[in-house]
């Protein structure tokens, strides 16, 4: 019984550490996919001039899954109208910081509002901003993400030792 409890405690600590670390990883994945999405838009708007809705719908499914549902919120806005705000876009998801949400919302708000030349200029500017956010997210991941797993393991081991 004591051994089972130790295993459960160790696994629990490891899980908490993993979840903590995963939060930072998801942020990096989010910005990676967002940059990929913006680059794809840049190319498609320049060459195919396809409608925005179709471009969002056809975007790579795997990359879409990292976008925290903002593609769905954006499609809803394209289909139903209304205001596009950080709240309506992110639907209160806390993974992305408030100021980051504002930058991303501004990007989506400007989509489809100008001619090809200006639109692609805006997208390129946004990509630069996203790359900066991506770097910050990566630094945080390196700093806190890996630390989370290590702390989980140490805490788990500490508990096991205490119980022994």
């Amino acid at each position, binding site marked *: 019984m004591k051994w089972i409890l130790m295993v459960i405690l160790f696994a629990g600590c490891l899980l908490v550490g993993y979840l903590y670390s995963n939060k930072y990883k998801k942020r990096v994945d989010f910005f990676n996919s967002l940059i990929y999405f913006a680059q794809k838009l840049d190319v498609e*708007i320049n060459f195919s*001039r*396809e*409608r*925005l*809705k179709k471009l969002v719908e056809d975007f790579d499914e795997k990359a879409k899954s990292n976008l925290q549902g903002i593609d769905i919120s954006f499609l809803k806005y*394209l289909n139903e*109208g209304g205001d596009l705000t950080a709240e309506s876009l992110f639907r209160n998801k806390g993974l992305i910081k408030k100021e980051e949400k504002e930058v991303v919302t501004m990007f989506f708000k400007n*989509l*489809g*509002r*100008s*001619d*090809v*030349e*200006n*639109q692609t200029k805006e997208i390129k500017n946004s990509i630069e901003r996203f790359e900066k956010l991506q770097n910050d997210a990566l630094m945080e991941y390196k700093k806190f993400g890996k630390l989370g797993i290590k702390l989980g393991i140490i805490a788990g081991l500490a508990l096991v030792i205490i119980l022994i």
Partner: protein
Amino acid sequence: MRADKPIVIVISGEKYFLSENGLTKRLNEAIYSNKTTIEDIIFRASECSIYSVNEQIKKGFIMTKGGIRIGIAGNLIEEKGVIKTMTNFSSINIRIPHEIKNCSLKAFNSIYYNETIQNSLIIAPPGGGKTTFLRDFICQLSERNLAYNVLVLDERGELDTGKPNSLGNFTDIISFSRKIIGFENGIRALSPDLIVTDELSEKDDVDAIMYAVNCGVKIIASIHASGIDDFANKENAKRLIQEQVFKRYVVLSNREGPGTLEGIYNEKLSRSQLVY
């Protein structure tokens, strides 16, 4: 709709203001539009993708599904003499097309004469019913089983309303193409017997007409003019008149509502009893 001005609705040539309770003649009940609403309408009309309709915007309009044309006013951005785009939209004019069944009937027997179609030009002022006339004429051909291969060169996307069978059973449609290119491609690829096209305006359009006629294809087209004299004074009309390209000129006006038939003229610009 004009920024910060009352919304005006025109029905059968009569102007009304839009109020909360429908149409009104009273200015104090009118709803005012604003710049944001105008920009939003243009954004939505372009299916949220203004970049995809920039070529139309440069010409001052957007076509939406169903042949609805939205005319736009704003700041034209020009660079080295070339229009790049329009920004800062300030007004829009939404034209909703409609069918008027049999509106071309009075002129039908003049255009379809001696069991053949005569090259014809429909002349009318803006909003005078040219497009509606052309649309109905194509349907009349189809209803009579006059199996002409009809090529509709719909440069502004107004002729094709998108409704099923709105242009009959024997019609091919080339949309948003310049006439000279559309005519060449269409004649080469689709073997039309008749080409129907809207709003001749430039020298290129006249060249396209001459090309089609020389290929032995019949033409029915339309042009903006207030009457036969106004048409005859147009620079581009001179060549058409001189070479007697069109055998019939159908003049429409707004006198008793859009599509009022004012007269049908022959190739010498005179009315003959045979014609009307």
